[in-house]
Structures are given as structure tokens and as C-alpha cells.
């Protein structure tokens, strides 16, 4: 999820002016929303169909399918409710009998007493509860095929914090265990009350984003059920399987979903029913609004053709092509660098004006984006969020890590690949802001996120246990990206790309752990990187080197015998001193480049183990500059300004900033003077 990018972009866009964008794709078609339009029915099989997860059940599964959901849902827009029945077939591959099953009931998070809301108040004490924020999921009946009604065994559990008021995890107990290798079929009837969009899901005016909306079984992982409560800073974790979902809703709704449209029929009561199918995914979401305008495009990669469906809200058509260009560029780069995209579709959901809280979220083959009216091309907020959320199709969608416990594995790795791809698509220095009077790069934005919370929490902390949302964001997104960018200096950019690709290809459609990722990096690079991971991943040590001292002393510094005027001082040049100091506890080998007045440059390599090191050079000329990490690859260094020292500073930067401050202070005065 990536709402904060859009927030930054929205603040800055007011001052923005236009500039370039990447090349456009072809084959775009636009259709104004009307009653009969929904996403195109099932696509024809693409080339390389063996790698493609589409609606056809004839193809070989890509994942170990543990769950099969069949859901019939009916949306009532007048009450913002969904009534549904669900049949879940669970295939017991846990290797042991299972009698108790936990289910996620995430819509219950939108209640004032929930753990989610409690955590929200900790982070944002100004947050006010409003009745329309209420969301809920209520089960009216639950039974297991051949075992009868389970309602009496149904109860809420709170495995994370013991908050008995929290109802986001429900557990049932079967009368008898399900044997290893056997199936159990649950039949559940439930009703959702959708909230006004608070976080990721809900409604706004005629727009619906329906996510985390059905009882979803937990994951048997590491010998136990893993089914966490819904927290403010956590996302999701589930098993792969198939989804067959029927959605009934008014005929004027334009619908998008994380599945292929299998059929569509109009009903006599003025409603229509859409049937979707999806496989080798671990979640299913959908969206509906009569106000959407649909824009379609295609992209063809190594695994076949991907249908791109963009559902654009009123006023945002100016951004539609930007979304599509970005997702095509991102598909291309992921395909080239990390591995094929095996699905035959991706749906881009553009929430309406005011629906930012539904934006910047990932679901399998469906992502929500965000923009603003009149968004200037020089503010790359829409591109950032598109790239980021699409990246989650790999890091979360296919490499399905546990987002509760190791959020850095999806958000962090995704932020790293986001930097690489945004740099490649939009230019390394200007892929966040590309204004005439200033630029900002994605890698710097990630780094600033990290430096703002550098030593508060380790990357490996459970997501809901971070000290606050700022630390969670700064560490999980920013620090992970910065750690991996810095790792490029140690193992090389090409090796990093190869390692990330290996990790994806090896662990797609599974639930790998952080250790799996780190081991892959070591195996591919052929290096023991534990010294780095222990400090950067598991630790909170600060990496900060500084040029502590740089000066030159004449040789000799004293007059020769009989030289009363002192003209012999400095006759033999200068003794130059450079002292490098490791301020933080993070030990990292660094390079130092020392330059002399005559243009000579010397590069030193220091292992950084001691607290400081002094370099001494006898030269004809004085030293003019010393710079740690001259290639600017050690992005983990918290303070870039103390990494160098120069005597050649002409004061221009200081004057520039000074003049700008003066200008703003003048305007402050002018504004007050308007009152006189």
C-alpha cells in the first residue's frame, strides 16, 4: 500500500509545471461507462500458455492450491451492504489432522473498539470516529459439509494483543479432525456492511472498492495457524487457490475484479450477475461504479499477452494514459529483469475524487491507484503508485511472504525494485519530481524515509510492533530499499538483479521467509554477507562516516638554520592530513577520494573497523577535497553532508539558499503588511 506517495505528490503538485513522460503504448481503447460494459470476457489463450494463470482450468496449476472459494455475492447500493454465501474447500496439506480453523473477518476492523482503530488513535490522536466509518462482517450460518452446523463453536480470538473487543479473527472447531491430505468444505452465509473508505476498502458516493470482504481462512505455517488480527500497519497473508465469484449488482454498474470475466447475464429484477474466475492467487477483490470510464490496452511479454483494464473515475481521464504507460513500462522491466508475469490481466482502479484512502493498494491482478485533478506531468505521483502497486503482483502476489511478520519482504523489496524501475523509466534524478526549479529522485525519497526513523526499529520487527507508523513506513519501505541499494556496492548491480530474479523464480507461489531471501542473495553473490545483514536487517545501528579533519602543513613547518625570514618554510611542499571518523556503530568498508590542488586524486579503501583513520600525504600541493564514498553508493550513510570536506567551496550553494530564505521572509512580511 502506498498512500503517502500520493499525499506528498498532492502537496507538491500545486506548484508544479509540466514536462516529459515515457513513450506511450498502442492499442488503447476507451469506452464510456454504461450498463452493458464490464471487463472483457475470458481472453483467448496467449502464447506460452503453460505459464499463464487464466480462467482455463485446463492449464497446469502454478501454485499448490490449498483453498477453493466459491462465492455468490449481491451488492445493495442503497444500504451499502453485500449479502453472500461462500463455499470454501480446504485441502489439508498441513501434514497433520486439523480440527480448528481460524478465519479473517477483516471488515470488523472498522469499529471503534477494534485493534485497528485503537492503533489508529495511537498514531493519529486527532482521528475522529464517524458513524459512516462503521464496517462489519457478520456470519449468519456456518457449517462443514458432512459435519453439520458449526455456529455454536464460532468465537473470536485475539492472537496478537488479547484485545477481547477485536473481532477480526474468528475460529471454529469441527466435530472431528480433517485427516492429512483430505478436504473439508465450509458453507458460510455472511453479510458485509461496507464503510466509507477508511483504509483500502469501502464506498464513496457511487464507488465501491470491495476488498477483505469475505471470511478467509488462515495459513498453516511453521507448524501453527498463522491468522493475525487486522492492524493499522499490516497487510495480508493467505494461501493460494482458486476463486469463482458471482457478483450481482445493478445493471448500470461498471465492474472490475481480480479475475477473468467468465459470463455476464442480466436478471429480470434490473440487476446483472457477473461470474469471475481466478486461480493461483490468494485473494479476490472487486470494484464497481456506474461513473467509471474504461480504458483498455494490451502488453505482450515472455509469458503471453496481458489485458490491461483501467477503470477511470470522473475528472481523472487526463491521468489514464499515464497509468497505462507506466504499467506497460513496469511489466516490461519486471519481465526483463525479474521474471515473467504469468497472469493474462491486470486491472487498474482509479478511485474517485476524495477516495484517496481506497487508493494505493494491491490485490492479486487488481491494483488501486490515485491521482488528482489537473495532475501535472512533472509530478510523478500517479506513476509512482502505479509502479509500486504493480510491483506487489510479484512481491506479495506471487512471492507471497507474510506481510504481518516480515513486511520488509514485500513492501521493502518492492520499494527497491520501484527505485530501479522508476530510474530506468523516468530518469534517475527526476523520477519523483521533475520541476523546472527542482527535482527529486525516488532513491533519495526512500533514503529520506529511512533517515527519518533510522534507529527506531529493525526491519525484521513484526509490522504492528513498530513504535509508530512513521517508523514502520521509514524502515519497512525506505530502509529496506536503501539497504538493498547499498548492497549493490558490495555485490554489484548485475549480481543484485540476478539474485532478485533467482529469488522470484525460486519462491513464486510459495511463502518464503526473510532467511530464504538472504540466503538467495548470498548464494547468487557467492559472498558471506552476514556481517552486513546482521547490522542492516536485524539491527538498528547507524551508519555515519564523516571527514573529521582535513588540513595541510608546510614542509618544513619551521625555518631552516639561519633562515631568519622563514623563506624556507614550505619549500618541500605540504604534509596533508585527512581523518575519517566512523560516527555510528554500523561498520562498513568505505572508499575515500582525496584530491590535491594540482588535480591529482588518490582513492583509499578503509575497512571501517576502527573508529577513525588518519591518512597522511606529502605532496607539492595542498589537499583541496576529501570525499567518503565518492561514487555515492553507500546510501545507508545517514548524513551525506559530512561525507566530504573541501576548501574549494565558492559559497554559491549557501548564497542560493540564503537568497531563497530572504525571498520567503520578504513575502511573509508582505502578507502581514496587507493588513495595514
Amino acid at each position: 500500500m502506498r498512500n503517502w506517495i500520493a499525499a506528498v505528490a498532492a502537496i507538491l503538485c500545486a506548484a508544479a509545471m509540466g514536462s516529459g513522460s515515457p513513450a506511450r503504448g498502442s492499442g488503447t481503447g476507451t469506452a464510456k461507462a454504461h450498463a452493458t460494459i464490464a471487463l472483457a470476457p475470458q481472453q483467448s489463450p496467449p502464447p506460452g500458455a503453460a505459464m499463464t494463470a487464466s480462467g482455463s482450468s485446463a492449464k497446469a496449476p502454478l501454485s499448490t492450491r490449498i483453498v477453493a472459494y466459491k462465492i455468490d455475492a449481491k451488492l445493495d447500493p442503497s444500504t451499502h451492504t453485500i449479502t453472500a454465501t461462500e463455499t470454501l474447500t480446504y485441502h489439508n496439506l498441513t501434514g497433520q489432522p486439523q480440527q480448528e480453523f481460524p478465519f479473517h473477518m477483516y471488515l470488523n476492523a472498522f469499529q471503534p473498539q477494534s485493534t485497528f482503530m485503537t492503533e489508529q488513535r495511537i498514531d493519529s490522536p486527532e482521528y475522529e470516529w464517524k458513524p459512516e466509518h462503521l464496517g462489519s462482517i457478520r456470519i449468519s450460518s456456518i457449517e462443514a459439509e458432512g459435519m453439520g452446523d458449526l455456529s455454536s463453536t464460532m468465537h473470536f480470538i485475539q492472537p496478537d494483543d488479547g484485545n477481547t473487543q477485536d473481532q477480526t479473527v474468528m475460529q471454529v472447531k469441527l466435530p472431528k479432525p480433517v485427516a492429512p491430505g483430505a478436504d473439508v468444505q465450509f458453507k458460510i452465509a455472511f453479510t458485509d456492511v461496507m464503510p466509507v473508505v477508511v483504509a483500502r476498502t469501502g464506498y464513496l458516493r457511487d464507488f465501491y472498492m470491495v476488498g477483505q470482504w469475505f471470511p478467509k481462512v488462515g495459513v498453516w505455517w511453521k507448524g501453527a495457524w498463522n491468522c493475525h488480527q487486522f492492524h493499522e500497519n499490516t497487510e495480508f497473508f493467505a494461501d493460494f487457490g482458486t476463486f469463482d465469484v458471482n457478483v450481482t449488482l445493478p445493471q448500470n454498474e461498471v465492474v472490475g475484479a481480480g479475475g477473468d470475466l467468465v459470463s455476464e447475464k442480466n436478471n429480470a429484477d434490473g440487476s446483472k450477475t457477473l461470474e469471475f474466475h481466478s486461480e493461483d492467487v490468494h485473494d479476490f477483490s472487486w470494484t464497481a461504479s456506474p461513473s467509471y470510464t474504461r480504458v483498455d490496452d494490451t502488453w505482450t511479454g515472455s509469458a503471453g499477452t496481458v489485458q490491461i483494464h483501467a477503470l477511470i473515475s470522473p475528472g481523472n481521464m487526463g491521468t489514464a494514459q499515464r497509468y497505462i504507460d507506466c504499467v506497460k513500462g513496469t511489466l516490461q522491466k519486471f519481465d526483463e529483469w525479474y521474471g515473467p508475469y504469468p497472469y493474462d490481466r491486470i486491472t487498474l482502479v482509479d478511485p474517485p475524487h476524495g477516495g484517496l484512502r481506497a487508493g494505493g493498494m494491491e490485490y492479486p491482478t487488481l491494483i488501486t491507484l490515485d491521482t488528482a485533478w489537473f495532475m501535472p506531468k512533472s509530478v510523478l505521483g500517479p506513476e509512482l503508485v502505479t509502479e509500486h502497486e504493480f510491483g506487489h503482483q510479484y512481491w506479495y502476489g506471487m512471492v507471497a511472504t507474510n506481510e504481518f511478520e516480515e513486511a520488509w519482504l514485500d513492501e521493502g523489496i518492492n520499494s527497491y525494485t520501484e527505485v530501479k524501475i522508476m530510474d530506468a523509466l523516468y530518469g534517475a534524478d527526476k523520477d519523483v519530481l521533475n520541476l523546472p526549479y527542482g527535482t527529486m529522485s525516488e532513491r533519495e525519497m526512500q533514503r529520506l524515509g529511512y533517515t527519518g526513523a533510522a534507529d527506531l526499529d529493525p526491519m525484521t520487527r513484526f509490522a504492528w510492533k513498530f513504535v509508530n507508523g512513521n517508523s514502520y513506513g521509514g524502515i519497512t519501505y525506505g530502509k529496506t530499499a536503501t539497504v538493498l541499494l547499498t548492497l549493490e556496492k558490495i555485490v554489484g548491480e548485475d549480481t543484485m538483479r540476478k539474485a532478485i530474479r533467482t529469488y522470484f523464480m525460486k519462491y513464486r507461489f510459495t511463502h518464503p521467509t526473510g532467511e530464504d531471501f538472504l540466503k538467495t542473495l548470498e548464494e547468487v553473490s557467492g559472498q558471506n554477507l552476514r556481517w552486513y545483514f546482521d547490522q542492516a536487517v536485524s539491527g538498528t545501528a547507524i551508519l555515519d562516516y564523516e571527514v573529521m579533519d582535513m588540513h595541510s602543513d608546510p614542509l618544513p613547518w619551521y625555518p631552516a638554520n639561519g633562515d631568519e625570514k622563514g623563506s624556507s618554510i614550505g619549500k618541500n611542499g605540504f604534509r596533508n592530513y585527512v581523518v575519517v571518523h566512523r560516527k555510528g556503530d554500523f561498520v562498513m568498508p568505505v572508499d575515500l577520494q582525496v584530491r590535491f590542488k594540482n588535480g591529482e586524486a588518490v582513492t583509499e579503501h578503509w575497512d571501517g573497523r576502527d573508529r577513525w583513520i588518519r591518512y597522511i600525504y606529502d605532496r607539492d600541493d595542498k589537499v583541496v577535497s576529501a570525499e567518503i564514498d565518492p561514487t555515492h553508493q553507500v546510501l545507508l550513510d545517514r548524513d551525506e553532508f559530512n561525507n566530504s570536506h573541501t576548501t574549494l567551496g565558492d559559497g554559491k550553494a549557501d548564497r542560493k539558499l540564503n537568497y531563497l530564505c530572504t525571498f520567503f521572509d520578504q513575502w511573509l512580511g508582505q502578507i502581514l503588511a496587507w493588513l495595514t
Partner: protein
Amino acid sequence: MTGEKSGIFTGGAGLAWRRQRVLWWPFLVNLVLAHFAAHATMARVESVLNQSLASERLLVHGFHFSAILELMSGPGNRLSFGPEGFASAFVFFFFMLLATGGILESYWRDTTLTTTDFFQNGGKYFWRFLRLVIYLLIALIPVGIIGAIGASISDHVDAKSISPFPAVWINLANLLVILLLMMIVRLWFDMAEVIAVAEGERAAWRCLRDSARLLRRNFGSLFWLYFRISFLAWLGEAILLHIWVRYLPAERVGISFVIAQLVVLFWMGLRWWQRASEVLWYQAWGMADTSQQTAPADPQPSAPARDPELVVLR
């Protein structure tokens, strides 16, 4: 009559140009105060910028925002905007409160005042104008309430409407109404200050009352005069800012400073033009109008109360 009133527009520019001394001094005071405030802010970061190669990031592509953000958020928060900027703004506010009387007196007499005269007049009107500022703040309260009502209507419409557009249009219309009302309020108080100087009126409320009557009877003429100059100011600012950010290379620090000062000077110059035009308008039309209010039997416009020979427009 229309021709003569439009002459006030250009006549005001001429008057502001002839008496430009009263513009330069406030401009310089504004600049010096802001410079000291900026210097205090920059003192914490000056040595870092002059000795670090990382400061080069401020001299490319305009500059890298991340460099400034790092200076602000990095260890030690070197670049922190303290109270200096607000302090300098407040000092400038009080200076302008003191100077406005002298500026208007200079325009009224169309003569260059000595420094002593200038500040004597400033002191003479200081408390009156301070009271007017207080009244102005009170007058802005209803404007704020209207803005809040507009915002609440927009929220209500947003909650009820299927389309997002009506609420946004209401917000936009609300903003325009607020802007219009603020211009009208400012014009009202501008004329009150002119009356205070022209008539020697000591009671701020009487100045406001007479000014309100004047504005009500001559709204089109006065507002058109005020709006035209405001529009030119916005247009000029936009052009100057465009030149600054679009065409000046990032490393041309000196020229960018000059452009920045032109932006401020242009803004002040046009505001002074407004004040000069308002004085001329009052000399040509307002005094007659005010006389009609106080002595309805005499329909003839009367000459300026003091120095009638200095009236520019015939």
C-alpha cells in the same frame, strides 16, 4: 466623467512613480529585515554548505529537493526555520503601520516629504491605523464565516451527490467569493485611510463609515480601479516567476536574486500604485461625494481640504 476616472488609473501610476522614494524605503526595510532573518536561519547551515561537496546538489536541475529535506531532517536539524522569519515579518508589519501615514501624506500632497515629515505623519496616523487594522480583522471574521459556510455546503453536497464535481465547483466558487470579499474589504479600509489623511479625521469608525458610503455610491468605479491594478500585479508576478524558474540556470545565483527582488518590488510597486490611485480618486471624486453627505445643500465638488493646487486631475 469616465475618461477622467480612467485618467486616475494612469495618473496613479504617475504619482507612484514621481514619489517612488516612499516605495524604495519600505522595500529596503523589507529586504534588510528578511536578510537578517535568513542570515539567522542560514548561520546553522552555512559552514556545512561551504565545506561539503554535497552542497553541489543545490546547484543542479534547479536544485535537488532531497538535499534541502536532508538538511532539514538530518542529524542536528541544521536547517530549521526558527522564529526569525516571523519576527522580521512582524517588525515589517509595524514599520508599514508607521509608514502608511507618511506614504499617503506624500501622495496627497504630491510632494517629497523630508524624513522628519514622513515619520511625523507616520506617527500622527499610527494609532488611527492600528485601530483600523483591528477593525479590519473584525471585518474579516464574517468573510471567514462565509468561507466556512461555503465549505460546509460543499461538504454537504459532496456527501449527497453522486458526482464529485458539484462540491468542487462550490469550493471553487467559494474561493472566488472569499477573494472578492477580501478585495472589497481591503478597498474599504484603503479608502478609510485616505479619508483619515485627507480629512484629518481622528475617529477610525467615522473614517470607516464615510468610506463605506463612498464605496457604496461609487463601487463600480473604485473596484474597477482596484481590480485592474491587482490583476496587473498577478499577471506580472506570474510572468516574472515563470522567467525565474524556467529560464534561469540553477547556478546563476546572482541573477536569480535580482529576479526574486524584482518579484517583490513589482508587487510592492503595484500596491503603491493602488494607494496613489485611491488618493487621486478621492481628490477628484471622493471629496465631493463626502461633502454631499455632510452638506446636501451644496451639490458642487469641493477642492481638497489642504493644498488644493496639488490636485493632479482636471
